[in-house]
């Protein structure tokens, strides 16, 4: 389950590094409880009042109950950090690192299934819930209220920047957010759009979801399939970016590792078409998203 409870406590693996130590004060000032950090060789140090441990196991033994862990480890060390967390018994992991090799990504996904754990990412911008004061990762930056105010719309996005941009767009149109999360733009997302949307079916706060998709892969198509099958019942609004890339050579990566058209796979126009056919509201223009959300909220 990705929905952490109010007051959830998390660890930060690799939090003493550049990115982690930049984001730690942002999380703490939002009210997020980061109760320990992990960095081999730095055990015993304290960062902004947060005790640092050599291992996840040690951290858990000392600070007691922990709901999950956020990983700031470099890409090449991410797989071993995930293993360490899962083997220590943690069931909730969020991976921020970009450029995790695809092989490692596939192993991480298989491990998550084996351990029956919720693993978000790689390359996730984070998770935020403005009402519960949950903020993990860089999502919303240093001042999350600029983009995210409490409400009943969930945002699930391949793009980190655009998850906040959607939050901002909703806010500018008088709407607020229940959960916003980055699934990451890698080929293998341990939690994909459908995984989040399925869980949001049971979330009382969420009335509808906005998904931000782009060229590459089949995660958007899977949403269409599950809406069509009646498994996703709450209304979904989608925006799919990257239509202009269809005029450029294929087999080229645009930004994210998974943003690539291979053969006929991953074309934005096809994604839009199957989503529309399944009954998902697809925004033609980004600025239309809020109107579509209002429309489905009225009709829902």
């Amino acid at each position, binding site marked *: 389950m990705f929905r952490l409870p109010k007051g959830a406590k998390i660890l930060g693996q690799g939090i003493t590094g550049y990115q982690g130590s*930049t984001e730690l004060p942002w999380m703490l000032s939002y009210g997020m409880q980061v109760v320990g950090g992990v960095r081999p060789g730095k055990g015993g140090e304290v960062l902004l009042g947060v005790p640092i441990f050599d291992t996840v196991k040690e951290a858990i033994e000392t600070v007691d109950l922990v709901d999950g862990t956020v990983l700031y480890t470099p890409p*090449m060390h991410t797989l071993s950090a995930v293993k360490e967390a899962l083997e220590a018994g943690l069931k909730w992991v969020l991976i921020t690192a970009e*450029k*995790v*090799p*695809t*092989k490692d990504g*596939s*192993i991480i*996904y*298989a*491990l998550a299934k084996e351990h029956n754990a919720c693993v978000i990412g790689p390359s996730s911008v*984070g998770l935020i819930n403005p009402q519960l004061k949950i903020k993990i*990762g*860089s*999502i*919303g*930056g*240093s001042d999350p209220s*600029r*983009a995210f105010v409490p409400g009943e719309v969930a945002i699930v*996005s*391949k*793009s*980190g*920047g*655009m998850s*906040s941009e959607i939050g*901002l*767009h909703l806010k*500018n149109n008088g709407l607020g957010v229940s959960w916003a999360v980055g699934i990451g*733009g890698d080929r*293998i*997302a341990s939690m*994909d759009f459908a995984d989040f949307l399925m869980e949001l079916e049971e979330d009382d706060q969420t009335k509808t979801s906005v998904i*931000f998709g*782009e*060229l590459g*892969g*089949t995660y958007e198509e*899977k949403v269409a399939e599950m809406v069509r099958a009646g498994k996703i019942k709450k209304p979904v609004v989608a925006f799919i*970016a*990257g*239509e*202009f*890339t269809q005029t*450029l*050579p294929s*087999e*080229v*990566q*645009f*930004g*994210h*590792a*998974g*943003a690539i058209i291979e053969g006929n796979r991953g074309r934005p126009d096809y994604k839009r078409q199957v989503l529309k056919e399944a009954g998902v509201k697809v925004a033609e*223009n*980004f*600025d239309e998203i809020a109107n579509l959300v209002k429309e489905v909220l009225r009709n829902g």
Partner: protein
Amino acid sequence: MILYEFEGKNLLKAAGVNIPNSQLLHSLEDRVTLVFPLVLKAQVLSGKRAEQGGIVFANNENELVDNLEMLFGKTVNKEVVEIILAEEKTEIEKEYYVSISYDTETRGPVLTISESGGTGIEERKANTYSINPLNLDIISDQNQLFGLPQELIAQLIKLFFDTDFLLLEINPLVKTKTGEWIALDAKIKLDDAATSRHEDWKYPPRLVAGYTPTEREILAKKIDEGDHRGTAGSTYFDLPGDIAVLASGGGGSLTAMDVLLKAGGKPANYTEYSGNPPKEKVEKLTEIVLSKPNLHGLWVVGAIANLTDIYETLSGFIEGLRNVRTKTGLKIDFPIVIRRAGPRDKEAFELLKKEIQDFDLHLYSTETSIAESAKIIAEKAKEYAKKEENVSVT
């Protein structure tokens, strides 16, 4: 990174997979010591070489000379042939298509096999098997493999995984009349993200298959070399329009391009920087983006940033802007529309207002959407173009 056929075959050979006796030819002077008949294969990155005349046969010395003369320097799907792989022809009993790649549906590696290989595999029925990355020896039912030896398949799966391939495609993998298994082709794609754990990956940089890059595209790609802090210019395309685009973020840049085109603007390029790059990278990318002649506008655009330091990156932009004017003498008097927000944006905007009063600058933040700012730059660029036209007429 896509490998040339000969590079891929070297990896297969090193892993114990049979390939034909072969020789790599770089010029007509190279002496061929193979046994006729031969197959001559142009080494280009794009597929469908045979249809384009990139694969020819030679039964004797005369045919060899004629065909090498014909192939060297020939253009196959926009790539000029500089290297030819000469191979001894194989007597084929049966052909197969085999590929291993990652599938977003199973979120893991998948093996695809079809009974007869050759060109046109896209239309043929193929069997696909999901591979569990935690336990690679999955295929136990011999019948499923159409008679392909299980050890060979296991060997290929191990090679794919151990060497961080994104794609291994052998088309065809053949059984010879003497019962040997030989890979007649190899299309291999390496995972660039895994480069640092493969010291033996010493492949020279290469371009997109079937596409001739421009000078700016090559320059932009170099910005990230040897510096892993953030990214700038790793994907860059010159486009036929008149509005230079300096976009931020993977998803943000895609959205920006789509809305600019919808607003009637014509982008002069696609590129992006993201992940909080140092200002030097943004400076270099700014110079490349603005080096194009006949621009009528510049759009600096991004979603509200989470991590990227707006002050740092826009400082780099200012440097780049100044450099272009001093280095190239270009006027840069066209409209510049900036739509940015995120960490330290207030400081950044103060700096912009103070530092670049000698440019036609228009600043927007969260009150203006990406799409609205696209309309503004499209409009302003058109006005500027009209003005320029009038000046040149009079």
